[in-house]
């Protein structure tokens, strides 16, 4: 717990030609019979070639909805994109016609989900499912598609790939199914891979294998990756930057090491303090009191204020802006600097 090192910062200037992928001030609502839930309330983040951005949050924080908006797979209704932009290589995906949008999906940006079993069709062999994408989207011949499928399965380290083309999803273990899904996502050589809770359903030892695989693939295939997770442990290993989400907002956005050393938002701080750690012993777990807010009735001011130990009157009255700290990180807290420096105590 020494002082933070200044590293490439989240607020780094826009490179010439713009960011690879950029989400700008996105607002998404879910309109249901019970009311309007404000799921995403002004989310902005960006991704540059070759980097890994982790989006961290608990259920209901909006981390997956943002990814679905990027992919264009939000169910509308009930979801409504109120405002914002999602720019990929300078083009706003939200204003593209569906036909062009489809060209981006899979070919430029691909996604893998938590639950590989339900993402794969149980009645078709996996080789056929991977090959289908190639034949339909790339117009490959059957023989070429087959060759490429084996290549992809080798790439994701499925042992004996050629012999397993005819196997059905249920004949694979959880970890292997996840690999099949990764292979499908990679089929069209995407530049951005979104991994939505890729290891949550897996055992620890398998989790490690899959995270290694993802990190290696990202490097070898020169992709950029958005890793969506609730697991602070998984993030620490692979991410360059972290965006922490709470109640549909990014509350803290920082370089991964800086964030773990000295969080500058009380929510991040509380989250880090509340997980039991294997390497730190005999400590009563501190908790974040209360519950995440009802998204139909988000508290006034800072949405975290009812649960926050630092909260003062201003937090109840005023929505905090994203403060930029000395090391370039941003924190949506009126007392970001105080929270950040508090670690010295």
């Amino acid at each position, binding site marked *: 717990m020494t002082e933070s090192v200044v590293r490439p910062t989240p607020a780094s200037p826009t490179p010439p030609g713009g960011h690879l992928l950029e989400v700008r001030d996105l607002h998404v609502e879910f309109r249901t019979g019970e009311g309007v839930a404000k799921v995403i309330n002004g989310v902005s983040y960006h991704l540059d070639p070759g980097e890994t951005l982790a989006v961290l949050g*608990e*259920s209901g924080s909006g981390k997956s909805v943002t990814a679905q908006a990027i992919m264009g797979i939000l169910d509308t209704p009930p979801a409504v994109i109120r405002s914002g932009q999602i720019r990929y290589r300078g083009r706003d995906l939200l204003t593209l016609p569906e036909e062009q949008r489809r060209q981006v999906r899979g070919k430029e940006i691909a996604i893998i989900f938590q639950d590989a079993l339900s993402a794969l069709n149980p009645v078709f062999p996996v080789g056929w499912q991977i090959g289908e994408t190639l034949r339909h989207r790339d117009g490959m011949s059957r023989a070429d598609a087959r060759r490429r499928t084996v290549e992809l399965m080798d790439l994701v380290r499925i*042992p004996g790939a050629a012999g397993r083309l005819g196997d059905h999803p249920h004949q694979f*273990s*959880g*970890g*292997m199914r996840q690999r099949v899904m990764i292979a499908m996502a990679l089929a069209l050589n995407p530049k951005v891979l979104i991994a939505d809770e890729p290891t949550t359903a897996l*055992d*620890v*030892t*398998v*989790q*490690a*294998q899959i*995270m*290694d695989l993802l990190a290696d693939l990202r490097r070898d295939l020169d992709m950029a990756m958005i890793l969506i997770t*609730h*697991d*602070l*442990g*998984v*993030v*620490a*290993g692979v991410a360059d930057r972290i965006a922490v989400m709470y109640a549909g907002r990014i509350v803290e956005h920082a370089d*991964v*090491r800086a964030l*773990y*050393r000295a969080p500058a938002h009380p929510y991040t701080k*509380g*989250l*880090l303090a*509340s*997980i*039991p*750690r*294997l*390497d730190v*012993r005999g400590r*009563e*777990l*501190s*908790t*974040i009191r209360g*519950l*995440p807010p009802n998204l139909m009735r988000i508290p006034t001011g800072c949405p975290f204020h009812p649960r926050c130990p630092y909260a003062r009157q201003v937090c109840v009255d005023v929505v905090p802006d994203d403060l930029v700290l000395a090391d370039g990180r941003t924190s949506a807290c009126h007392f970001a600097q105080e929270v950040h420096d508090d670690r010295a105590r």
Partner: protein
Amino acid sequence: MTAPASPAKVRGETILAVDDLVKHFPITRGVLLQRQVGAVRAVDGVSFALHRGETLGIVGESGCGKSTLARLLMRLETPTSGRATLEGRDLLSASGGELRRLRRNMQMVMQDPYTSLNPRMTVGDIIGEPFDIHPDAAPKGSKRGRVQELLDVVGLNPEHVNRYPHQFSGGQRQRIGIARALALRPEVIVCDEPVSALDVSIQAQVINLLEQLQDEFGLSYVFIAHDLSVVRHISDRVAVMYLGRIVEIGTEEEIYERATHPYTQALLSAVPVPDPDARDDAGIIRLTGDVPSPADPPSGCHFRTRCWKAEDICAREDPPTVPRPADPHPSACHFAALRDPPGGV
């Protein structure tokens, strides 16, 4: 709630003893005339002792048999063979009134807070049901008072007795489940993955609650989980399961600092540390392959197919879970040894 344990009940004496417990689920073919074609060896000879007032953690990956073990102890499944005693009374052969009396002494907190509460019963009915089943547990007319007391004990608003489960969040539902388990004032509570379905910030609240209730009521816990960090946090002793067997058992420190079984070592090394500075990627033991099917486990040592130390003897001889020269706690490995550097995780 009054004083938990009478003076005669000595802390540290064995309260639950399990000896060579086996559960094989038959694999059958045919509809009317079923014939057995094999067996899934879910629990394959498990022995341990739970001491009064302690927490015994049971860790293992999915399919290792830890949940079946819980169901066997709770008599939801009938064991194939083996013995288990609760305070010296035979747990497995009890039936009728004797079983009902035993159940008052041992309860379970289940994993899924969404399916473990009947959606058509109010919270008051759910927590009050134990008193309906055991009318002698609450004097006539005191049921409502007892239910409200229990709600208070687990940190819920006693006024909420008339609400339905779906009006509560996951963490609150888990508290309802805990209140139900506490109602009959059991001495042993089996917790089957009690926090794995909850968000990180809510997990800590429930873990703290469980620890606090243990102190207050002198409870003994069998704490089953796949999250090694959580288990270390809450447990006094820990058993590691692999393919239906306990491969290593010892105090929390013996398992986490001086593990001698290769599987335990691999498992511990794979846990992602939520701190980029404290990570030791070189120290991670990468296990290859998947867990073999419990319907067809390897001969000899079940772990040998994924073990880097395996030799011929491992296929021939089943290593007993006994103290090993490397460290005096029981470990089921022919080549049990501390990791190099010693204790390094």
